[in-house]
């Protein structure tokens, strides 16, 4: 507590914000009382990273879990065989004081408008974030794996952590760096450069002007969950026309030539309220209030999604051009939640000025835990990771837990499941055969992926040639909205057969288009269809991974990063002449991706999946009784 006070005083002194002292003292007293009264219900959103990495949600089975990541930390310690005492440092990816400063200033700037939200959120902030140092140490020590002295606990700037996650594991010796998200401490977009072990941030756009927040505001307005539904809105955009583009530009956002922008805060509520948008926003968009999540999606919703996607792409492209001018680098690295917008990423690669692009696969806040850990190691004099022929430093992002044959068999026996064991050769052939007969396969292999995408170790697979696969997967496996597209995983060397993309995309973060010679002519009847009905049209010979605008979110599969997934695709190619499969994450709507064999069995039995493959063990749904 004393050290915290010392830190605060130092911060107030340096930043010349003497006026904050009485407020902070008052809130600290309040926070102290709350802690004494309630015990240990703290919720810092952090992740554990060592030589292993995983998100807490996968262990707790609670999607987007914001509790202290005890299970994820325990896994990382188990995997590396380290105790807390043996760790040189533990780092957190945010400077809580700076964020607190932003919150206070924002509330003061808008006062008295945000009073109800202030009353609700500030005590939580004091308790959870401002006193984070004490809490992290206490929680880590509660694991019973050793003690964590105060000097070993470090805090990084939020966007610096993102930038480090984007640059250090990249294959580049030097690169420009673009970080964009909702908000860190103050920054919402940062432009920087990395060279060797140095990462420097050159300029930033500050809260409340935020591209991430703008995107989330529309996500909210269209009836999807903020921080989860952004992907859905991106998938919805191709169904629409950018009919609201001008309206957004004229009223909501002022975009400068260099990509910097200002939002018109009259229309947004996130600074002071508990919603993202307000009644002025509704009035601007035809006087219609936010869509209820259960309401049917209209063509208007699709047009709005399309328009905000277009604005986003425009800003990202402008920022990228500015970054090129400022750094003159050949390479670009990206991170932050907005870097998960793979449609924008695809355009950056095709239309942007950089020769090479690398995006951190865990581009969201989970990846910044990894970033801050890497930043600390370099700060303390460690050299960059040597790639030794690897594609990048992320090892394909297969950094999570894996399970031995014994674990798998114990789980299956407990459930009385009927299963078969196959040798590798037989396994790949049989599974490829099943896929070619339109079977849906749960594919569980090796270490779990770190980051939001399933990349062939916790995946559900299907035949991309099947015209019914897309609706079947949405309706009977994933139980999700029928408009949502599916992504292909393609053998790296066969990518040019299907897509226009010219560089590898191992992390499924780039969108490109199906080659024109694979597209099918639309019939007159097809052309008359509107909205979601357009999904029923067969647009190519790989219809289940061809979105309505012929785009596809591509994962290239490489022999060196995932040999087993590669072999399966190869077997499928040998049997069918097609070197790609539908790859979607192994989970159902609103649940985290499966982690253990138990999770996989449950998901397999709870859906209409035909086959479950756990390592070399195969379960056939029809045989379960």
């Amino acid at each position, binding site marked *: 507590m004393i050290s915290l006070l010392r830190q605060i005083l130092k911060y107030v002194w340096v930043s010349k914000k003497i006026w904050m002292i009485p407020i902070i003292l008052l809130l600290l007293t309040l926070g102290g009382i709350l802690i004494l009264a309630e015990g240990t219900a703290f919720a810092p959103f952090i992740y554990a990273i060592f030589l292993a990495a995983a998100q807490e949600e996968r262990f707790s089975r609670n999607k987007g879990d914001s509790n202290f990541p005890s299970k994820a930390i325990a896994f990382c310690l188990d995997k590396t065989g380290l105790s807390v005492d043996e760790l040189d440092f533990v780092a957190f990816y945010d400077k809580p004081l700076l964020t607190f400063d932003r919150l206070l200033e924002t509330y003061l700037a808008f006062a008295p408008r945000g009073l109800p939200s202030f009353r609700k959120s500030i005590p939580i902030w004091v308790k959870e974030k401002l006193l984070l140092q004490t809490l992290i140490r206490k929680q880590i020590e509660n694991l019973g794996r050793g003690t964590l002295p105060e000097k070993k606990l470090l805090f990084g700037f939020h966007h610096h952590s993102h930038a480090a996650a984007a640059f250090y594991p990249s294959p580049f010796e030097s690169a420009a760096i673009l970080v964009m998200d909702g908000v860190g401490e103050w920054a919402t977009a940062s432009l920087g450069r990395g060279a060797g072990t140095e990462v420097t941030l050159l300029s930033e756009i500050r809260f409340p002007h935020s591209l991430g927040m703008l995107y989330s505001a529309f996500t909210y307005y269209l009836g999807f969950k903020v921080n989860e539904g952004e992907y859905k809105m991106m998938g919805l955009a191709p169904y629409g026309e950018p009919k609201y583009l001008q309206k957004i530009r004229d009223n909501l956002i002022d975009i400068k030539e260099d990509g910097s922008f200002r939002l018109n805060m009259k229309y947004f509520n996130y600074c002071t309220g508990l919603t993202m948008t307000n009644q002025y926003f509704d009035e601007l968009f035809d006087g219609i209030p936010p869509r209820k999540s*259960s309401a049917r999606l209209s063509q208007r919703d699709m047009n709005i999604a399309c328009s905000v996607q277009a604005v986003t792409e425009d800003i990202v492209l402008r920022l990228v051009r500015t970054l090129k001018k400022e750094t003159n680098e050949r390479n670009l690295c990206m991170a932050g939640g907005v870097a998960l917008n793979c449609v924008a990423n695809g355009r950056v690669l095709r239309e942007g000025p950089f020769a090479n692009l690398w995006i951190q696969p865990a581009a969201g806040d989970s990846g910044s835990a990894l970033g801050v850990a890497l930043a600390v190691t370099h700060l303390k004099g460690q050299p960059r990771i040597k790639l030794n022929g690897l594609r990048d430093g992320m090892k394909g992002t297969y950094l999570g837990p894996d399970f031995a044959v014994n674990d798998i068999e114990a789980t299956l026996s407990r459930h009385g499941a009927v299963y078969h064991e196959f040798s590798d050769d037989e396994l790949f052939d049989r599974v490829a055969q099943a896929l070619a007969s339109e079977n849906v396969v749960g594919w569980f292999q090796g270490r779990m992926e770190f980051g939001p995408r399933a990349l062939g170790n916790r995946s559900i697979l299907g035949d991309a040639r099947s015209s019914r696969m897309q609706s079947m997967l949405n309706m*009977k496996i994933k*139980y999700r909205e029928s408009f949502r597209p599916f992504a292909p995983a393609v053998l790296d060397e066969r990518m040019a057969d299907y897509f226009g993309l010219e560089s590898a995309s191992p992390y499924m973060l780039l969108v490109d288009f199906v080659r024109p010679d694979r597209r099918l002519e639309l019939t007159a009847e097809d052309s008359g269809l509107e909205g979601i009905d357009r999904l029923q049209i067969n647009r190519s010979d790989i219809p289940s991974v061809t979105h309505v605008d012929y785009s596809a979110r591509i994962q290239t599969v490489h022999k060196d990063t995932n040999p087993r997934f590669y072999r399966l695709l190869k077997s499928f190619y040998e049997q069918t002449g097609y070197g790609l499969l539908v790859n979607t994450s192994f989970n159902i709507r609103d649940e985290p991706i499966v982690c253990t064999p138990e999770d996989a069995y449950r998901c397999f*039995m709870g859906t209409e999946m035909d086959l479950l493959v756990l390592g070399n063990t195969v379960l056939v*749904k029809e045989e379960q009784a």
Partner: protein
Amino acid sequence: MFSNKILACLKAPGQDDDTSMEMTTEGLRCTETNIVYPYFDGVPSLLTPLSGDGRDLTERVKSFYEQNPFPNYEGLEEYGDLVTKGNSSPFANSLLRAIGYNKVILECGCGTGQLSHYLQLNNNHVLGIDMSLNSLELAIEHKKRNELVRSSFAQMNIFDLAIKDDAFDVVISHGVLHHTFDALGAFRHIVKKLRPEGIVVVGLYNRYARIPTWVRGKLIKFLGPRIDYVVRNRIQDVRKADVWIKDQYFNPHETWHTIDEVLSWFDENNIQYLNCYPPILETDGEDSEDLFASTNQGDKYKRLTTQISWLANISREGALFDVIGRKAV
């Protein structure tokens, strides 16, 4: 229309258990007597003509649900939406988890079939039966549209089930027996279809917690449907709200029951008490995560206070409580 597992459980109406049925294009055919029981509007029907006690009342209830298929599908056209809704319902979700995998389930009074469709997850096979053809038509329409293969439906009378004895792993009747002329009599019939060690789940209106609904029923004509909590908070669709109001406040017949009463039904029918939903207060049922776990039934006092406490929670949503038991060997 029926999976083999479900077809094997059916018999001809009024016949012995050694008869079996097969599907033909015209209807279900008894392989022993060759009598064909035709489909009505695509719905398999094994309904015997109503007779005897309660015929008039049964006719009235049937015709009520023919006019008001319940709970209806608005907003749940896609199976994914139905599953998401089921997963977010604490009762439906814990029921599915407790049932587990690969089971054969009978739902007596399935209405438009939502619960039956949901419970066919986990590789379970479900037969939903109901009197209302219009409700069953909607259930089958959803099944066909979503290509579901393990949920199936037939029109039957709960007092004359065309189902073999000891055939099902789980028998459920959730909010139905209180609309029959003899709830205990109906219970006797349905538990016969349960195999030894099988699980029965019976959901009924509670004698105490239903009182506010009765009061609202007297006021609703004057104050309008917004006095109902479910209409205000849960239902967005106007048609669905209308069906809910009719089911709750304008039903031609309903009876109210207590936990103790159901316990006496269990005793009479050789059923061992397992659990109650919502749980009986101050028993291990409160901590039990498994709906089918064997828990303490508490004493009369605890059961009474539990039911009075329901005035503060389940009362606003229809006051339905479920008691779960296991059939003794």
